[in-house]
């Protein structure tokens, strides 16, 4: 299934993601990683400061509601995979980001912006693994 190439709107969205990362560091001194925010919010007793993560999470979840109310914008969410693949993929992602200590936002944006060697390696590894997986799913299994 083709999707439209959207360089400008994607660049703008990326810049907003970066702005959020910079603001979180400037105000609360924290890394803007979705894995860290979610884990800190759902795994009790890991950190004493559960509340700021819950606040960031609440902001994320309410973004589409606010966008729809203020501008009428509704994001396109097309899911070209089966529900079983969502469950299996979700479980695997959860295990992977916990052991890998981060995901696309924590390692891919914040860590790489700090030139952290761990994040540079993690990002290279997960990008290659995702590429290989998509190739296998679409062109080997599904081919």
């Amino acid at each position, binding site marked *: *299934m083709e*999707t439209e*190439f*959207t*360089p400008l709107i*994607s660049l703008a969205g990326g*810049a*907003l*993601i*970066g702005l*959020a*990362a*910079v603001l979180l*560091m*400037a*105000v*609360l*001194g*924290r*890394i*803007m*990683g979705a894995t860290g925010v979610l*884990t800190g919010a759902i795994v009790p007793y890991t950190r004493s400061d559960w*509340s*700021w*993560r819950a*606040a*960031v999470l*609440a902001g*994320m*979840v309410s*973004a*589409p509601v606010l966008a729809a109310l203020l501008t009428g914008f509704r*994001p*396109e*969410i097309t899911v070209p*995979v089966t529900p079983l693949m*969502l469950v299996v*993929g*979700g*479980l695997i992602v959860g*295990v*992977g980001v*916990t*052991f*890998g200590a981060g*995901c696309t*936002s924590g390692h891919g*944006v914040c860590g790489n*912006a700090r030139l952290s060697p*761990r994040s540079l390696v*993690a990002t290279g*590894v997960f990008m290659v*693994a995702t*590429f*290989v*997986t*998509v*190739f296998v799913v*679409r062109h080997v299994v599904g081919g």
Partner: protein
Amino acid sequence: MRLIAGYLIGVIFGMGILISGMANPAKVLNFFDIFGAWDPSLAFVMGGALVVTFIGYRLVLKQPRPLADSKFHLPSKSDIDARLIAGSATFGVGWGIAGFCPGGALPALGTGNTSVMIFVAALVVGIWIATWAQRHVLVAA
């Protein structure tokens, strides 16, 4: 003050994710499908986010401390161990199967989309399992 700031920052992050296309698995998977229906948009998401964060962090981290905390909480680990590599590879496999990453899925929860809810429920269970395993099974590792 800290919670209001956190909430607003979450909203900005979520808006960025939604307009960039990161919450759309069809677009995300096409980025990785170079030999199929390739859509390079995600490179622009990463590029935009990295440039802003790279410059912004350099300005922010020159300050003695953040506005609403006593210090910057930066990751201190620097060793590239097997757990980092295996975990990241595992994450990539899951991302390639489902098309959602955590940062792409969480803001999309607010749309009420059923697929997103299924993915996030499984994601939460996966994080719980791995957190438990790290604490109780792999302590010595």
